């Protein structure tokens, strides 16, 4: 049963999901009646283990999969009702960073071409946060890399020449380049080394503050989710079993599953 939404004070809503259901061919119910909202400038954390349905939910949200039932409102536009070409336009207000940095890039394209793809597809110019608008593509790409602390010389490299952490940063730069209303981060640090993870998390937080981004941060790592998000959602077997603010994480009314996870991740 979907829990009531606790929505924070007066922020405009960026995303609202209502009662999303998704069953796979063969009968496996991956997502069972999930509802959530994300406010402007907020990071909502989604914790779940493998099989919880969190990745399926992300794909439904991004309209990469068709839901069986439910509503997706992105900036008050009903994505679930749009036809293919309208959807293509509406979807542009979202961006995504996936778990596997290698798969996120076409091995045959340079970093520059991959980085500029969203801007080129959408015929957008220089993103406003980079300052003056008379930049060439080369300059825009270089400045984007700078935002994620990568030197411009990587523009002409191929993905195989960069490490996982570096690729993931380019993925983040690519995501912010079109100033999306929402960025979905699906286990963005899971494949990375521990200290690189920490740097990427710091980077994500810095960017969120600087640019007022809204995130849906999905991970099995409760400590990472807790670090990034003011509100957390816990999923198990396709259902949302808990939803709380960060400061209420250790409150006694938490769901038993949440408490179990807390015990595992809370190191003394």
């Amino acid at each position, binding site marked *: 049963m979907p829990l009531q939404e606790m929505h924070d004070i007066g922020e405009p809503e960026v995303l609202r999901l209502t009662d999303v259901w998704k069953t796979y061919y063969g009968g496996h119910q991956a997502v069972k009646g999930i509802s959530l909202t994300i406010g402007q400038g907020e990071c909502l954390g989604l914790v779940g283990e493998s099989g919880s349905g969190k990745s399926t939910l992300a794909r439904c949200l991004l309209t990469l999969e068709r839901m069986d039932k439910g509503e997706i409102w992105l900036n008050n536009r009903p994505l679930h009702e749009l036809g293919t070409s309208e959807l293509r336009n509406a979807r542009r207000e979202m961006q995504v960073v996936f778990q596997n940095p290698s798969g996120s890039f076409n091995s045959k394209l340079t970093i520059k071409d991959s980085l500029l793809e969203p801007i080129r597809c959408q015929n957008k110019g220089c993103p406003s946060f980079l300052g003056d608008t008379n930049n060439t593509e080369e300059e825009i790409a270089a400045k984007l890399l700078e935002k994620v602390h990568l030197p411009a010389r990587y523009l002409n490299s191929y993905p195989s020449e960069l490490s996982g952490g570096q690729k993931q940063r380019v993925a983040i730069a690519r995501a912010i380049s079109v100033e999306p209303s929402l960025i979905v981060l699906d286990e963005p640090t899971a494949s990375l080394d*521990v200290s690189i993870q920490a740097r990427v998390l710091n980077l994500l937080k810095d960017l969120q503050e600087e640019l007022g981004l809204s995130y849906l941060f999905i991970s099995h790592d409760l*400590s990472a989710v807790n*670090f990034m998000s003011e509100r957390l959602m816990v999923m198990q077997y396709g259902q949302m079993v808990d939803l709380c603010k960060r400061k209420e994480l250790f409150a006694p009314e938490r769901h038993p599953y949440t408490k179990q996870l807390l015990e595992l991740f809370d190191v003394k």
Partner: protein
Amino acid sequence: MELLNVRDLKIFCPDNRPLVHGIDFSIRAGEWFALIGESGSGKSISAFSLAGLLPNGLRREAKEIQMLGQDLASISEGKLRDLRGTDIAYVFQDYQSAFTPYFTLGKQMDEVMQAHRHWTREERQKKSWDALNEVGLEGAEAYGRYPFQLSGGQLQRAALALAMMMEPKLLIADEPTTALDAMSAAKVLDLMARLKNEKGCAVLFITHDLRCVRRYADRIAIMQNGSIIESGEKRKIFENPQEIYTRNLLASVPPLHNVPRRLPIVGEDFLEGGALCAATRNA
């Protein structure tokens, strides 16, 4: 009592580039020793090299690898083979690779026992059942199952059963829980701690995740770029880390209480990557 004493272990790439630059460490009997490092640190190949399991082309050199009165660096391949699976057991990150998919678990456990001991069929079956029961699987049932019928966590526990079956003195576990979700990982780690205490076997635990280390390790060593930069008692290092790298590792795990605005990492931002060569890449 010292179980394993490694002195000046070096490992080289096929083109003679050094991957591990002469490390020293020792493991006492019955202790949990954690070797911590990120990718490119050389932790996994160091552990593999102990029983001669390096991938093709990598070369090992060591002044001494003393274990139970034998120098593993200089004994014959035959003797080394005897040790593997009996005194030294391995558990890997990829639990799928512990078993071949074509035979049941029981048959594979049987095979291992046949290779090393002369027990009768009934004895072997009983031992298998007991080992599986000890790791929390239904012995009689799991015995007849195929690997694909078990979940990741169950399979890793079965791999542990296989490893512990021959009562090893040293269990080398290479990131055994990295590919598992938190619940299964916790079960496997608890299990390993319990088995270690019951059987008195030492554990060489390789990981990048400090959380496992915090709970279970006795002594730890931290590797970076092929060298051990800091080692000692776990408490001491966690409370008073000397090296910047160690401090960064500790700071990398976001705490659940008192969440900081930023994780306090120090140092170069985008210099990453370690010393890898083609041989280790696809190993």
